[in-house]
């Protein structure tokens, strides 16, 4: 063997170069913060009022939950256009079961989730085993389930739901310490979560240092963690002065952690990235590409069903229009979050931040009284800008 030292002409990393190389990740975070600050100022502080923060979570929970599944589908090299319709359909199903047929909530919820899974399986089947493009299969699914929800609801809104079902969305975690305001449970959760983020970050950094592969300058590390932990504590503090932690926030937070772990730390996650990156190579490495693709659709179906339940619970009725065009918001969130249309690239955290960016813009613009017409235009332009930024960034690195 020739000696290994020659041929590596590594240049010293400096801050500028590092920032350039990771512009995307930092950019996303700063974009979110900048957008929040902007709306905070122009809405005279309404945006970050405790009530509004609570509302932000309630309003966007279903998008974020579906973005988790959508990210995985898109990383796997496919797309699911049917999620809005599926979400509406499952909401309708829940309403018919609970309101019209008096089925207990505890039975309805699992049944609805299973139905979501079956819908995902049905679509995934055609995509994986018949090689029909997912765009087409799920476009069909979008029409089919839109129609089916109309049929289920007979064109009417069905509601209201019993209180226990509403809690899914509008409930709050009770304060176990019983103090009320500020809500000590919420504060405790916030502090623990912030500590966990910092601790995990430090652990990872230490490990990378041990391998000599860490290139993030220490100042960046500190500032980044300070911002993330600070923002988290700030938000939680605000929430604690209102009604505490909304149930959906907890659901959402837990799901985000689970899916981030699944995609980044497990063999299944790794394999999905590989198959999205290069199906043929993945297959020849012994990865059951078909089964995995199928599972990404099943997973998407279940999450769409969960989103449907949460959405219906929040509105307290199921309407035939529920979930209309929501798939576009979900897909936009994933792409704003940095996923690639061709598969193999994207992160859960990115998709969640992408969804928040969309959510904050919706919310902020509504508070400002900007018409729905302009809102659409602005959201469209933001999506385009994010993707252009990606492409530009990639070219610059050459």
């Amino acid at each position, binding site marked *: 063997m020739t000696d290994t030292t020659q041929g590596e002409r590594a240049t010293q990393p400096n801050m500028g170069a590092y920032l350039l190389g990771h512009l995307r990740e930092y950019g996303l975070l700063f974009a979110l913060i900048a957008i929040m600050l902007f709306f905070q100022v122009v809405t005279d502080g309404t945006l970050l009022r405790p009530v509004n923060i609570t509302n932000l979570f309630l309003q966007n929970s279903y998008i974020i939950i579906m973005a988790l599944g959508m990210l995985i589908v898109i990383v796997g090299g496919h797309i699911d256009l049917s999620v809005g319709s599926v979400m509406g359909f499952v909401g309708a199903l829940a309403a018919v079961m609970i309101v019209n047929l008096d089925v207990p909530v505890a039975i309805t919820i699992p049944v609805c989730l299973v139905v979501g899974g079956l819908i995902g399986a049905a679509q995934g089947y055609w995509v994986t085993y018949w090689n029909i493009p997912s765009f087409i299969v799920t476009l069909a699914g979008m029409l089919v389930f839109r129609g089916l929800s109309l049929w289920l609801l007979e064109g009417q809104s069905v509601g209201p739901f019993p209180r226990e079902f509403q809690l899914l969305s509008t409930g709050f975690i009770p304060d176990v310490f019983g103090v009320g305001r500020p809500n000590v449970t919420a504060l405790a959760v916030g502090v623990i979560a912030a500590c966990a983020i910092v601790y995990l970050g430090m652990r990872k950094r230490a*490990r990378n240092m041990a391998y000599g592969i860490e290139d993030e300058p220490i100042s960046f590390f500190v500032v980044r963690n300070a911002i993330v932990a600070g923002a988290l504590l700030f938000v939680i503090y605000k929430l604690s002065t209102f009604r505490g932690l909304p149930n959906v926030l907890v659901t959402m937070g837990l799901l985000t952690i689970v899916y981030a772990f699944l995609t980044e730390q497990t063999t299944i996650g790794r394999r999905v990235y590989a198959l999205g990156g290069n199906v043929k190579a993945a297959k020849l490495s012994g990865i059951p590409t078909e089964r995995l693709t199928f599972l990404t659709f099943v997973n998407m179906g279940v999450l769409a069903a969960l989103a449907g339940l949460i959405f219906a619970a929040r509105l307290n009725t199921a309407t035939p229009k529920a979930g209309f065009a929501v798939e576009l918001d979900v897909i936009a969130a994933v792409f704003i979050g940095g996923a690639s249309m061709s598969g193999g690239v994207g992160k859960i955290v990115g998709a969640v931040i992408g969804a928040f960016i969309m959510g904050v813009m919706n919310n902020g613009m509504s508070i400002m009284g900007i018409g729905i017409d302009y809102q659409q235009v602005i959201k469209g332009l933001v999506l385009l800008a994010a993707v252009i930024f990606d492409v530009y960034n990639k070219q610059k690195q050459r």
Partner: protein
Amino acid sequence: MTTLLEMRDITKTFPGVKALDNVNLKVTAGEIHALVGENGAGKSTLMKVLSGVYPQGTYDGDIHYDGQVARFGGIADSEALGIIIIHQELALVPLLSIAENLFVGNECASKGVMNWPETFRRTEALLKKVGLKEAPATPVDRLGVGKQQLVEIAKALSKDVRLLILDEPTAALSESDSQALLDLLLELKAEGVTSIIISHKLNEVRRVADTITVIRDGATVSTLDARTESITEDRIVRDMVGRDMSQRYPERERRAGDMLMEVQGWNVWHPEHATRQMIKDINFHVRAGEVVGIAGLMGAGRTELAMSLFGRSYGQNISGTVKLKGQVVDTSTVAAAIRSGLAYVTEDRKELGLVLEDTIQRNITLANLSDVSRSGVINEAEETKVAERYRKAMNIRTPSVFQRVMNLSGGNQQKVVLSKWLFAGPEVLILDEPTRGIDVGAKFEIYGIINELSAQGKGVVMISSEMPELLGMSDRIYVMNEGGFVGELDASEASQERIMSFIVTD
């Protein structure tokens, strides 16, 4: 002799890598100029700078072309001056016809309406010039790589080429296709076309090159004039690797042990045409510690044989048995084949071997994630350790194992694929053209790895179109032709002539 091109002090940096460090290159009008160097030396990068793939401003240094300073903002600018590059990876549109491919972006049309008769007429003329006997309407995915390469050259000719750049044009070609291509280059030279050719096949370089520039670690090491003195391969190698290399193949001890793998009655039919038999009743075996070569011309069915054995990844109606250590094993899926102890290093590393967007580390562990994970959770620290181990052992040139594979040079990518399969810990490793596009030094390293495997009692099956390599490495050689084995030779009795005679008399 006028200087056509001079590149002065070209420096090009990628994040974390200085790919070119003050490189100089001078090309005389009308010559064939060879550019050689190890994998990752910067050859392709230099040519991308020259052709405007990396535009002015992304590198330092000057390009003087035809007596003028050239500033290229993109490929179109360099093409306008007659500089045409044929990249290491072919860039044809697979489903379009030859004619359409030749004139993509440069269509014979008036006011946007295609002039088909003209297109076909010109295509025919160009195909004749490059010596390709195919109808202009043939879709290019029906052509073998050799013919596709000729289509690329025809495409270059259609653009009034003055300086033709070929990046490893013969890497994927058979012996005879390579010869034809080199002859064509000489013909073009006679017509006044200047060319730059990058190649790891030094015998070819010696055959056609007038001048040879050697690059090492991103810097020009020497420029050799083959017209005034005779340049030996050893001389070139010495400049490439920076030291003398007396041998091309490491010493190996023959040690055929117990029976390791036996394949019996292997039959495979074409995946789409169920009546076309691709593999015909093949029987062969590999003993522990043995390196078994499979010789044959392009299209003999060697890759199809390997792919069908490896998890039935090719063909249909497959019949026959595979035994490992005397036991019939399940190879019906890739996962089962890997579990049984097979590994297959694909011929086409970009399409079939690598996830280009992913890092070196992730590619290396992909086929054996269970060894770096526990109950499905990956231990990334362990994974990095594994990747680092292979980076050192295989001498993969990269600043870190977190580098994306698509940023590696071709040869280093090949080492990543090899690492992946070595990490899978196979009993029998099937290598399909394992040294394609790899420099002499790295070849030697890979041969060393093959020997190491055989010393550990593993079996190696090596498919290769490079006869010297087969002869230099194998203990036994099977000769394959038209889907069947037509001969078997022991290393002691094998020679290029005897192998060819089996094929010819078949």
